[in-house]
């Protein structure tokens, strides 16, 4: 309820600002004109400098969103592992995790991003001397080329079949689970579901004529003798630096949240579970994490929001996310007020979307048990 009210209030403010901007004849008409600049980083788009500024801003949104989306997934994995590692009985493991957390969260993110960019990624060799790892990874200061896949003609139909296969596998798994609960023993529910999914996707993969082809990068020499890396997934050093910075920085905070969430539980919980014969994995997944999650999720949501907002630091190394796009347009043609309103609204929408998802998750966790 409070959430809805805040969202509505924020929406009203944005609306008011937009109207204000229009009143002052600071409207958004300029967005339909050609941008006159292009992107070194594009994803899912094929933007050309003659396309509209609105399109350019759209590319900026995609660049922000992919940074945030990939960043949240990676930082969660890193943070949870590091948080559990800090509590490890193994001295080396817990020490390494502690050093990571303490150094990273006590230094500014901006500096970390700049270091990743200038000290690490830009120090990679030129393309001509790109570091070649097993002929599938090429690391250079222009791009990190990773193996990827390219899609063939039947990709669409095959993807539909794969989705149907995944749904069937999930149904099979829950059916076996129920049978397991009724009949006891183990029905290997997950194994059978994975097997079904694997068979369906592999068989139809060949029936539809291999809709996905591996796309490994390679080093090519053009007619004029220029070296370039073609194919594969080419990650720019800017994207890699910002992603590394955000993931590693936010992961340190998440590690602390996870650690304190687990430590907040009485020791007796783990001991009682151990005394019943539950394995370490079962204790973690059935007893510790479900209880710790109740404490972890609210501050975790904050960290996701921080990551989202911190993604704006990417502008420091000219990764073309929305701030960079806005800044470039302002340099070219002005219109600062409407552009900042637009940027403000974009961050607000992203943050609200994340909050809504996390709060739904939070309610489910809090409701399970008392």
């Amino acid at each position, binding site marked *: 309820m409070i959430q809805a009210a805040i969202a509505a209030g924020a929406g009203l403010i944005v609306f008011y600002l937009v109207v204000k901007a229009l009143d002052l004849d600071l409207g958004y008409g300029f967005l339909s004109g050609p941008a006159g600049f292009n992107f070194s980083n594009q994803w899912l788009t094929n933007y050309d400098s003659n396309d509209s500024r609105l399109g350019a801003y759209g590319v900026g949104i995609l660049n922000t969103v992919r940074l945030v989306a990939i960043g949240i997934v990676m930082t969660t994995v890193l943070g949870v592992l590091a948080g559990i590692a800090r509590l490890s009985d193994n001295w080396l493991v817990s020490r390494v995790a502690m050093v990571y957390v303490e150094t990273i969260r006590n230094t500014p993110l901006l500096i970390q991003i700049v270091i990743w960019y200038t000290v690490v990624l830009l120090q990679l060799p030129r393309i001509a001397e790109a570091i070649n790892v097993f002929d599938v990874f090429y690391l250079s200061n222009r791009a990190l080329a990773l193996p990827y896949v390219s899609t063939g003609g039947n990709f669409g139909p095959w993807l539909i079949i794969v989705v149907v296969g995944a749904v069937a596998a999930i149904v099979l798994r829950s059916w076996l689970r129920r049978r*397991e*609960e*009724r*009949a*006891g*023993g*183990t029905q290997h529910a997950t194994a059978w579901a994975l097997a079904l999914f694997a068979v369906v996707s592999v068989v139809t993969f060949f029936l539809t004529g291999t809709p996905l082809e591996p796309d490994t990068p390679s080093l090519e020499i053009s007619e004029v003798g220029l070296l370039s890396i073609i194919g594969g997934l080419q990650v720019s050093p800017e994207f890699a630096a910002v992603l590394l910075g955000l993931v590693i920085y936010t992961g340190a905070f998440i590690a602390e949240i996870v650690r304190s969430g687990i430590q907040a539980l*009485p020791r*007796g*919980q783990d*001991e*009682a*579970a*151990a*005394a*019943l*014969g*539950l*394995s370490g994995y*079962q204790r973690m997944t*059935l*007893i510790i994490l*479900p*209880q710790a999650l*109740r404490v972890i999720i609210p501050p975790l949501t904050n960290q996701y929001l921080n990551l989202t907002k911190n993604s704006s630091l990417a502008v420091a190394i000219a990764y073309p996310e929305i701030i960079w796009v806005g800044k470039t347009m302002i340099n070219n043609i002005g219109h600062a007020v409407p552009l900042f309103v637009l940027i403000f609204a974009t961050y607000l929408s992203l943050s609200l979307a994340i909050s809504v998802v996390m709060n739904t998750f939070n309610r489910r966790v809090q409701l*399970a*048990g*008392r």
Partner: protein
Amino acid sequence: MTDNDSIDARVPIIICEDVTVSFGDFQALKGISARVYEQEVVVIFGPSGSGKSTFIRTINRLEEHDGGRIVVDGIELNDDVGNLEQIRSEIGMVFQQFNLFPHLSVMRNITLAPQKVRGVPKQEAEEQAMELLERVGIPEQAQKFPTQLSGGQQQRVAIARALAMKPKIMLFDEPTSALDPEMIKEVLDVMGELAHSGMTMMIVTHEMGFAREVADRFLFFDEGLVVEEGTPEQIFTNPKEDRTKLFLSQIL
């Protein structure tokens, strides 16, 4: 160990030989030797900090001993013990603080381990849980959550939870010390019934009246050592050691 000579025809289910446990520089157990025979009820008592909890916790390896030998049901507990979970599932443990899982219903608290560790079917596990809840006298609480129960009820659920694994041995670490006085009896009654049913039990308790009724043997702990060992008769009417006499005079 002279007291055991008369009954050594029976099979010991727990054998401890010169067991030591240290926390850093501090040695909490300084060489404990003891045996527990099948269907025996052994009561451990002694001053606070004498190592009673530490000892009982080494039996299911919640604490690791750094010297001596512990053999439980024919399996020696050491770093090589591959199936620690298997051994633990044969030993039920009841804690002073109950340690029920607050995010799970009473029913789920009891059925979780049988289903996950033993692979018991859900329906069978729930039927068995209901039988156990009846045995401890609170079948009507099955669908509640632990925090909705009184301390005495929680401890009885904890006993039912441990029994659901059909353990060969039950360990109790001061099971009534966290309870309000009016709830102590309901828990002791359940434990007494369990003792009469032939369960092998090790109990740390200061409830000497109860202990005298159910115990086959007493171990008196002081400063990490077994100072005296004997039948209830010997301990109460004719304690040999001064420290035992002193302690008994303080608590009785």
